[in-house]
């Protein structure tokens, strides 16, 4: 186990609690975060079958307010945020002028003239800087709210029942990708029906000072339903099974949303210019006519696990690269996401493998996601 010299990692409001639970901690994007509390496979299974509780306070919240908040976000992001209703949320991206992805985001419209942009921890500063720069000339304010929130997530099929026991908020009326202000266990919270696990679940944005009280209340309310604390390790395998991209793996500044198979987030039909429009229009044409590489799923026939950066091979040639790989607890086999040359990207393409430290292991090309919950 090696460690690299870097500034002391930041700690969330729940740091002492994680340590008291015996969590294995890891440095993630400059934060000291729980990797797992016990077995990451058990944590993964709990989220798929019962419920899991996550501390996601490393995520970066940025508030955008003002009469032109909507117009600013339509200009600064690739999505059509002015059409998002109050109380709803949207998955979107922020790109450079050349179309490269700076980050993927969830944007909540809290009021007519107030949005909350949630960025990945690793990109929060970049997103904040870009939004601030792009706000020039707009009657809107961009506010760094990273320290204003702790973020707890309750994910899994039992999560609605667990949360219902702690709040009067109308959870049945709260649709997927919606968020409403409410009170949970006496704690004021923005209650959002979002997540990154492929399961039903909620994300609760609260004041850091309230985080521990809320964690304890959720732990108590969820105990009988099988809720367990969950670390980032299982969050990664959960999102991988659900085919969800992770910035730095499937997404980067050298790729456009179209390269990542997520061109649908780019809304060309919105009014006015937006950052990246021209480059993204070209990227859309390119993707339609001759996609260089395609993001696919790979399922192992053997047991050796592909890792990010491993070459995808066919007929002795490198035809792609693994972006994320892990043993899938749900499938019971190693799985990976990979960018693969279009000629080898169709599900069922024979002869595709992954070069696992010099040995070519056979893999099946499949459509993403690997796992889809029954609704």
């Amino acid at each position, binding site marked *: 186990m090696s460690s690299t010299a870097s500034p002391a990692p930041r700690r969330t409001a729940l740091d002492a609690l994680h340590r008291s639970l015996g969590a*294995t901690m890891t440095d993630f994007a400059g934060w000291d975060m729980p*990797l797992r509390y016990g077995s990451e496979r058990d944590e993964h299974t709990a989220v798929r079958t019962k419920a899991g509780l996550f501390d996601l306070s490393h995520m970066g919240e940025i508030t955008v307010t003002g009469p032109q908040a909507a117009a600013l976000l339509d200009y600064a992001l690739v999505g059509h945020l002015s059409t998002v209703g109050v109380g709803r949320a949207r998955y979107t991206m922020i790109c450079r002028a050349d179309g490269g992805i700076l980050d993927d985001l969830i944007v909540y419209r809290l009021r007519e003239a107030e949005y909350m942009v949630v960025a990945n921890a690793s990109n929060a500063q970049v997103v904040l800087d870009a939004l601030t720069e792009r706000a020039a000339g707009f009657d809107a304010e961009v506010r760094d709210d990273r320290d204003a929130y702790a973020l707890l997530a309750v994910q899994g099929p039992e999560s609605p029942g667990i949360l219902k026991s702690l709040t009067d908020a109308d959870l049945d009326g709260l649709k997927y990708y919606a968020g409403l202000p409410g009170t949970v266990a006496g704690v004021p919270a923005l209650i959002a029906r979002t997540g990154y696990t492929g399961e039903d679940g909620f994300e609760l944005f609260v004041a850091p000072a309230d985080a521990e009280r809320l964690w304890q209340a959720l732990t108590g309310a969820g105990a009988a339903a099988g809720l367990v604390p969950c670390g980032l390790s299982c969050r990664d395998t959960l999102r991988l099974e659900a085919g969800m991209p992770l910035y730095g793996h499937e997404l980067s500044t050298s790729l456009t949303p179209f390269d990542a198979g997520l061109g649908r987030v780019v809304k060309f039909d919105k009014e006015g210019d937006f950052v990246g429009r021209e480059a993204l229009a070209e990227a859309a044409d390119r993707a339609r006519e001759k996609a260089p590489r395609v993001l696919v799923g790979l399922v192992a026939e053997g*047991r*050796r696990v592909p890792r990010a950066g491993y070459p995808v091979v066919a007929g002795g040639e490198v035809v792609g690269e693994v972006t994320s790989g892990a*043993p899938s607890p749900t499938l019971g086999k*190693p799985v990976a996401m990979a960018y693969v040359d279009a000629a080898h990207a169709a599900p069922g393409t024979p002869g595709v493998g992954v070069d696992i430290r010099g040995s070519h292991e056979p893999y099946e090309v499949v459509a993403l996601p690997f796992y889809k919950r029954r609704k």
Partner: protein
Amino acid sequence: MSNPQQLRYSKEHEWLSAAEDGVATVGITEHAANALGDVVYVQLPEVGDTVTAGETCGELESTKSVSDLYSPVTGEVVEANQDVVDDPALVNSAPFEGGWLFKVRVAQEPADLLTADEYTEFSGS
């Protein structure tokens, strides 16, 4: 956790039992198993292979990483634990018992293996 007194330990976090009729058992420590997380794949040396103290002889994969397996001793492999190949979780659940990895006919033992107390201090657990 406690590291069994009757075993000796390498700084690569393997344990070695006292040899019986010249054959010793090798595994990884609980400290190492905990650090790896859930082990999902184990590649062991094959019976008849010669392993060398301090050199890699297999690999262990967990959810998050792959790690080389180092032999704590030099000799010939006489048995590999098929149970752990079939059920790698044994490495996590019983690292000092059912999760043993292979048995080796000892040709030469390195002089720098640690006692249980020394290893506890070295690993911090």
